């Protein structure tokens, strides 16, 4: 079997041919370099996304409770590589521009009296202990000023908890977190559907209407590039790990092979890593008891 080129050597022949270069060290160095590059690429991507999301929603009169489908799609796809800290940076940037921290809300964020450090916030009727009265919360001013309203605070936080904690380059390909983000409104609708008995009488038109929302492979080149980045496809070194594995067939000595057969010393089960169990008989008995 011809031994395949080591990937590291293949990608930089000049380095590999230098005398005294240990290919394994070179491979490890390249692995780290590629990982650093992956991190840089991701950071650049996320910064671009933050700059895009500052501009949402597309209409200044948009209603955050019923956002435009295009804006929702843009938000969901942009958030894929985000970690919670990146999301916090987005909120901060929106606030700096005077906007509500929730990306689908066009309103200005609240401005509280700068001399007040905390404010008491009352919940809805019946939100208190035992379903009576109102829930009370003491909130620092900076937290309140992130949003236009407590509804938007809830919407934004509902998304935040769905983001993946790990950076993109450490996520597994089958990690779904951050990939199927639900808006608060969608989450509520889904759980209502779940509780309610499903109405069997959906008209053909309804179904067709829903099918319109099923956009398979609307993916542009950028979508697949994102996916590649998420999976780490652009960085083959990230897949292989640091130790190169070469599979070699065992050389089988000429001669016939025989099926194993019972030898006298095998009757008691033999040794386990050199240790011969003494009470095999008792153990057998125990097993029978269990059965």
């Amino acid at each position, binding site marked *: 079997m011809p031994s395949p080129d080591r990937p590291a050597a293949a990608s930089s022949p000049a380095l590999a041919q230098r005398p005294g270069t240990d290919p394994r060290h070179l491979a490890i160095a390249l692995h780290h370099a590629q990982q650093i590059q992956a991190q840089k690429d991701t950071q650049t991507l996320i*910064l671009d996304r*933050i700059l895009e999301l500052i501009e949402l929603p597309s209409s200044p009169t948009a209603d955050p409770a019923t956002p435009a489908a295009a804006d929702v799609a843009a938000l969901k796809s942009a958030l894929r590589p985000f970690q919670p800290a990146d999301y916090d*940076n987005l909120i901060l940037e929106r606030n700096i521009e005077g906007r509500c921290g929730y990306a689908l809300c066009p309103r200005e964020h609240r401005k509280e009296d700068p001399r007040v450090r905390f404010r008491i916030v009352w919940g809805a009727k019946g939100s208190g202990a035992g379903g009576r009265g109102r829930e009370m919360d003491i909130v620092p001013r900076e937290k309140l000023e992130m949003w236009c309203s407590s509804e938007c605070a809830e919407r934004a936080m509902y998304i935040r908890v769905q983001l993946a904690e790990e950076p993109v380059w450490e996520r597994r390909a089958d990690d779904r977190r951050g990939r199927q983000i639900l808006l608060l409104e969608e989450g509520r609708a889904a759980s209502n559907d779940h509780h309610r008995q499903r109405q069997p009488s959906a008209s053909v038109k309804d179904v067709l209407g829903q099918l319109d929302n099923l956009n398979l492979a609307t993916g542009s080149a950028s979508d697949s590039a994102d996916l590649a980045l998420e999976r780490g496809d652009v960085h083959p070194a990230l897949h292989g790990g640091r130790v190169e594995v070469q599979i070699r067939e065992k050389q089988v000595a000429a001669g016939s092979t025989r099926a194993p057969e019972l030898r006298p010393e095998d009757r008691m089960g033999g040794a386990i890593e050199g240790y011969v169990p003494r009470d095999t008989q008792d153990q057998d008995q125990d097993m029978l008891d269990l059965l």
Partner: protein
Amino acid sequence: MDSDYAGGSGEADREIIRLWRTWRTVFEMLQDRGYEVTEDEVQISLSEFRAKFQEPTSGLPRRDQMKISARPTEAMQAKYTALPSKSNPNPQPDCGTIYVEFCADSSGVGTKQVRTFNHTVDENNFHSGIFITQTPISPSAVRLLSGIPGRICEHFQEQDLLVNITRHELVPKHVLLSPEEKARLLERYRLKESQLPRIQVSDPVARYLGLRRGQVVKIIRKSETAGRYASYRWVI
């Protein structure tokens, strides 16, 4: 120091004085890095500074007027020119005109302001830029600032430059080596650069001098027993 200005109201006046100190440190910093600045610019008096940058009626500073651009001296260009190599037999200096801007916003500086700053740097084809703000800037803004391809942009907070740390008696003198000096040093001691002790680019003196990764800086200390002695550090 002329502190006998009559028109200053308490708070605004304190701000002007602080800003004047910062402004002077910026010129000292440009001079120490090797840019062409005049002694008059470095030594600007408080009254001159007031005449230029203080709003006469309110006494407040006009940061939007506080912009500087400076060209590298020949000595600086030499320090920033790589040694000729086979692939690059005629290397050009990797430095050029620097642009400094004070941000007028008193809080909440983010990508919005940095985008404007980056645009100015790019549009005027400045080689490097220094963006100075009153408050910390957002993490995304820091990233955006360092992200213009082929240009070097730095950020300082006004208070970082209120005093010139390199003028403190306990801070030894740091001198950047040219590529040639660096090569000779490594040759003389038969060293690889990675065998030198290190200094981070985020180190306050490294930031002051605008050091870049891979450069070597000479640190000259005064010692009671040995007079002056030098050590070297590799910037990482």
